[in-house]
Structure formats: C-alpha cells, structure tokens
C-alpha cells in the first residue's frame, strides 16, 4: 500500500515542522475561541433581551391622548383630548374581532388593606384582553380577570407577585378578601414573576394591582382612559391597525389625523424591530472584533507558510524543472495553509463549545449584571459565520505564500554553488 504521493509530501512537511505547526494551530485556535466566545455572549444577551421583550407582550401598541397641536375644522389647537371607555366598542367594531383592544384606567393612591397589613398602590382598571396583550400569566391556583368579571363588575383583584408577598406574607393570597379603597374585593390571581422592567413611569408589574375596568368605573366614577392598547393578530398588520385607530379617534374627537401630539402612539412592533436591529449591529461589531483576532491567527499561518516556501525554494525549483505547472506548485501550499487554519479552527470551536457548556452551568440569576447577559449561546449562525471566516483566513494565509512560491525562478534556485 502506497499512500498518494501528494499526501505523503504534505505529511512529511507537517512532521518536519511539528513544533511550529503546533504553535500556529494554537494561534488560530485562540482566534477562533475569541470570536466564538464574543458572539456566544452577544447571542446570549440577545436571547435574554428577546425573552424580556416577550415578557411585556409582543406586538402591541399603546395610544395616549394628549393636547392638539393643530387646528382642525374650526377647532383651535391646545385642546386636551381624552379617550373614554365608551370609545372602545366603537374602535373594536372598526378593527374587527381579530384585534385585541383594551383600555386601562389608572387611579392613584388607593389603600389596600389585608387584616391591617396595608399598601398604597396605583390601582388599574383593565379588560380581560389585557392579560393576553401583556403576556400576563397567573401563578398556579389563580387566574386573570375574565370577560364575566368585566360584565358583572365583580369586585375581584389580580396582584403583582411582590405586592402579594407584602400583603399576605406566607399565606396563599388567592381566595382571600382584600379591602380596596374601603371596599371588599376577592384576590383571584397572582402574577408569575417575569423579567420585565417598569414601563413609562408606571409601577413595575411585580407591584401591579388590576381590577376589571367596569368595576373601577363603578366604584370611582367614569374617568378617561389612561392608555388604549391594541394588538393585531400579526405584527405586520400594526400599521393598518394604528391607521384605523387614528382615523376613528380623529373623527370622534375632531382631530387632524396627522396630529401626533393629540395622540401619542408607542408601537412595540417597531420597538421590537429596533431592538433586533440593535442586536444585529452589536453582534456584527463583536464578529468584527473576533474576526480581527482570528486574522492575527491567519497572519501567523501566512508567516509559517512563507517560511516553508523559503525553505523549500530549491525543492520548488526542482519541481518546476520537472514540469510542475503553476497550480501544481501553489495547490499543496494552499492546502497546507488551509489545513493549519482549519485544524486550529476545529480545536478552537471544540474548546469554546466545552467552555460555553461549562459556563451555562454557572448560576447567574443571583447577580443582576450576569443575569442581564443571559447564558452564552453558540447558535448555528455563529458556527457557520466562524467557519466562513476561518475559510477566508485560511485561503488568504495560503494565497500569498503560494503566489510567492509560483514566482520562484527555477533557473536561479538550481544554479549549483
């Protein structure tokens, strides 16, 4: 059995430079490790942010009423606009049943009292749809507000997990009575802890106190909505949905439909896209840094290949005299450079996979900073990108030395001394 001659030449060359080859491979492995690691951290943070984002509910938009900034049909500017509960059925009928519509009425400084344990909160009256809009999930044993609660103006209340703990301590809150502004309510559910931050000056969800909007109006009298929330079944219908909302409210309250001071719209779907774009930019930035580190590895491969070409000048001259074509001279050098690069890459990838797995086992939830970063994750995208960069680096690292080899003048190298 005779191994292929080309392979044999390659193997003897590799064996001949064992130490140098090993160091070169390590350099590439280090570069690969840096690149994969940076990207894995970036990806981990992205996944985490995406999760948090989903904690808020995904593609909804919030409409706040403000003051008109434009005159319209004889009305002056500067009018304070208010959206009322009675507008919700009108908007719902224009949007169709597929779109979730919910109002939210705030009432600050309300005293909650459970057998003398008290808390003062901003009470919110919301619709049953609000739970789906905001992705609110109750702890097992409880439930969120229902349509019947709304219709029958039941005195039921849903509590944020921290607020429930403050009021009830170790007791099970669901089913307990709670005085809300002096009136007796029943606790029907407690929020499952989620990682969403407070929103626009409102209290964080962990301290939320939600009752049916109808109940709140009944107890405290009719008030304008703080916020109108809408969510189309598909995020890409958001633009049309918001257009309809704007038109409906403009005709109801005689507004210039283009007056964005009268109606402030906060579009989560657009925010989600902005966030994704930002993370794409961050990942690209990390990829560039990692890629540059990897290029240093490439430089060391090119360096060893240049040295090899120099050492083998005579050998290359001999091959040329034997009639080796340009490609027959350059191809083995390209292959050798690629081999060093890919061996280093494989080593680096393997080590980073192991390290990322190990890091995944470290509990991060206790430390806020670590929790923000999430768990580093190696996705297929990262692996493919790294392999693509490795292939590019390997090609370049072999290309220039191979070009030098091809430019060797056989007549000069073969001249006897």
């Amino acid at each position, binding site marked *: 059995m005779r191994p292929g*001659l080309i392979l044999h030449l390659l193997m003897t060359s590799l064996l001949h430079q064992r130490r140098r080859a090993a160091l070169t491979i390590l350099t590439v492995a280090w570069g690969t490790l840096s690149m994969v690691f940076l990207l894995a951290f970036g990806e981990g943070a992205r996944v985490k942010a995406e999760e948090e984002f989903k904690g808020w509910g995904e593609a909804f938009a919030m409409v706040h009423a403000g003051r008109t900034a434009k005159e319209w049909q004889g009305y002056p500017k500067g009018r304070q606009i208010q959206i009322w509960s009675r507008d919700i059925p009108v908007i719902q009928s224009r949007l169709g049943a597929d779109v979730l519509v919910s109002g939210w009425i705030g009432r600050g400084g309300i005293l909650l009292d459970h057998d003398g344990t008290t808390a003062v909160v901003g009470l919110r009256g919301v619709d049953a749809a609000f739970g789906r809009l905001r992705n609110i999930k109750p702890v097992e044993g409880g439930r969120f507000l229902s349509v019947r609660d709304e219709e029958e103006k039941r005195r039921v209340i849903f509590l944020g997990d921290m607020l429930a703990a403050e009021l009830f301590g170790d007791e099970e809150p669901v089913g307990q009575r709670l005085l809300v502004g002096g009136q007796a309510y029943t606790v029907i559910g407690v929020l499952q802890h989620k990682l969403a931050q407070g929103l626009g000056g409102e209290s964080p969800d962990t301290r939320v106190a939600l009752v049916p909007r109808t109940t709140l109006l009944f107890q405290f009298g009719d008030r304008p909505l703080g916020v109108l929330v809408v969510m189309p079944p598909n995020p890409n219908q958001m633009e049309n949905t918001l257009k309809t909302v704007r038109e409906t409210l403009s005709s109801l309250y005689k507004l210039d439909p283009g007056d964005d001071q009268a109606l402030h719209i906060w579009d989560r779907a657009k925010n989600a896209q902005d966030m994704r774009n930002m993370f794409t930019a961050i990942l690209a930035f990390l990829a560039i840094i990692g890629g540059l580190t990897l290029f240093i590895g490439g430089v060391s491969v090119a360096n060893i290949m240049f040295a090899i070409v120099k050492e083998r000048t005579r050998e290359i001259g001999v091959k*040329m005299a034997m*009639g*080796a074509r340009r490609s027959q001279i350059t191809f083995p050098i390209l292959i050798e450079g690629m081999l060093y690069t890919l061996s280093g890459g494989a080593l680096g990838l393997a080590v980073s996979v192991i390290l990322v797995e190990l890091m995944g086992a470290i509990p991060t939830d206790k430390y806020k900073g670590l929790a923000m970063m999430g768990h580093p994750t190696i996705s297929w995208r990262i692996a493919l990108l790294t392999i693509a960069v490795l292939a590019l680096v390997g090609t370049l690292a072999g290309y220039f030395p191979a070009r030098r080899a091809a430019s060797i003048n056989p007549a000069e190298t073969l001249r*006897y001394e």
Partner: protein
Amino acid sequence: MNWPLSKKNGTNGNGGNGAIIHMEGIQKVYDTGKVKVEALKGIDMTVKRGEFVAIVGPSGSGKSTLMNLIGCLDTPTGGTYHLGGEAVAGLDRDQLADVRNRRVGFVFQNFNLLPQISSFENVELPMLFGGVPKGERKTRVTELLTRVGLEDRMDHKPTELSGGQMQRVAIARALAMNPDILLADEPTGNLDTTSGGDIMGLFKDLWAQGCTLVVVTHDLALAGRAGRVVEIRDGRVTKDTIAAA
C-alpha cells in the same frame, strides 16, 4: 492525457531537418536595472536526434545560461529557439512547464532529489505533473529504476543512498517522461572518480540506446566520451568538433 511511452517520430518530434535543438542568434541579456550583462551574444547551434553533445567552457562563459535556455527554465532575449520543432518564444509559464515536462529531462550536479521521499516517489514525480495514470506510473518507475540498476533501492530515501546511486535515481527521474533530450549540468561534479565513471558509462549506454544527451561539463573525461564537443567562450560558440568515432 497524451503521454508518449514510445518515442515520437517524424516532423512532429524532430522539426524538418531532424534537429531536436535548433537555435539561431540566441542572445541573453540580464538587465539588473543599472548594469546590463550580455551573457550570450548570438549562439547558433543545432543538435540532432541521437547526438551526445558536451558543452564545455570556462566559468562565466555562459554555459549555465545556455543550459537554462535549452532546458526552457529561462527564455532568450533575442534569437529563435525550436525544441523538438516547437517554437519556445512567447510561451507562458505553464506552457514552458509542459515543454519541460514532456521534452526535457534534467540531471543536476547536486542531484536535487527531494530528501523526504523515496527513490520510487522521486522518479514518479514528473509523471505526476504530466498526469500519467497511477498504474502506468508504477510500471514505468520500476522499469526505469531497473534500467539504472537500482531495482533493490526503490523504497530507500536519497539520504540512504551513495552519491553515485543518487545520481542514478536522478537520471531515472530525468527519463521518466521519455523526453526528447537529457540535459545534464556537471553530472559528475559531486562524485568520486569511481562513481563518476559509472555515471559516464550509464550516459554512454543511454546514447547507444538512442537517447539525445546534452551535458555541460568541466570534466574532460566525460567530454571525451561525447560524440561532439561545443566550446563556449564569452557568450559565443568558439569551437564545435565532432569526435572521431
């Protein structure tokens, strides 16, 4: 792959007049930027199939330059050169490589074998470049190494061989693609008298078998065995003698 095991005949291989090498007014000027060195000043030379030509001359006479041109390792700056009827001027690097591969077999003073591979693989190398199929390579390498008397040294590396043996491997390698000419540059220069004598004997045998040989040498004994001696001085042919048979 067009791979001629049997010698090409007729005009294709020889040119019209049976000449393997046909040079007219060959000039070679090395232009180093500041200085122009005129190494060859107009060489006219024809070598016919089956000739054994020794090229002699003092150092700096232009022998090596002439040899590089004959072997297509370099191209002339003036004049015309036909090798086996094929005009060499204007060929690109790959075309020149093909010409070397098919038409020229090189033998060097310092053997120039690849030290890391066996005799077998060294002889195989030109056929690899010429695209000869594997089975044919094996047959041919065995045949050639047997012809130079090294059938029992096929798996030895060059470092395990004596100087004379190395040069014989190099000659087998030079014959691998069945070239039009065997071009040797001081082939006995690094050998002791006995080994040198062996190699001279081998050349004589090859000549007798019909090979065309061009040998550049200082070695008067070797030159004396050649059928024709061409003397170069100062970039010109100064003597061209056919030895009495």
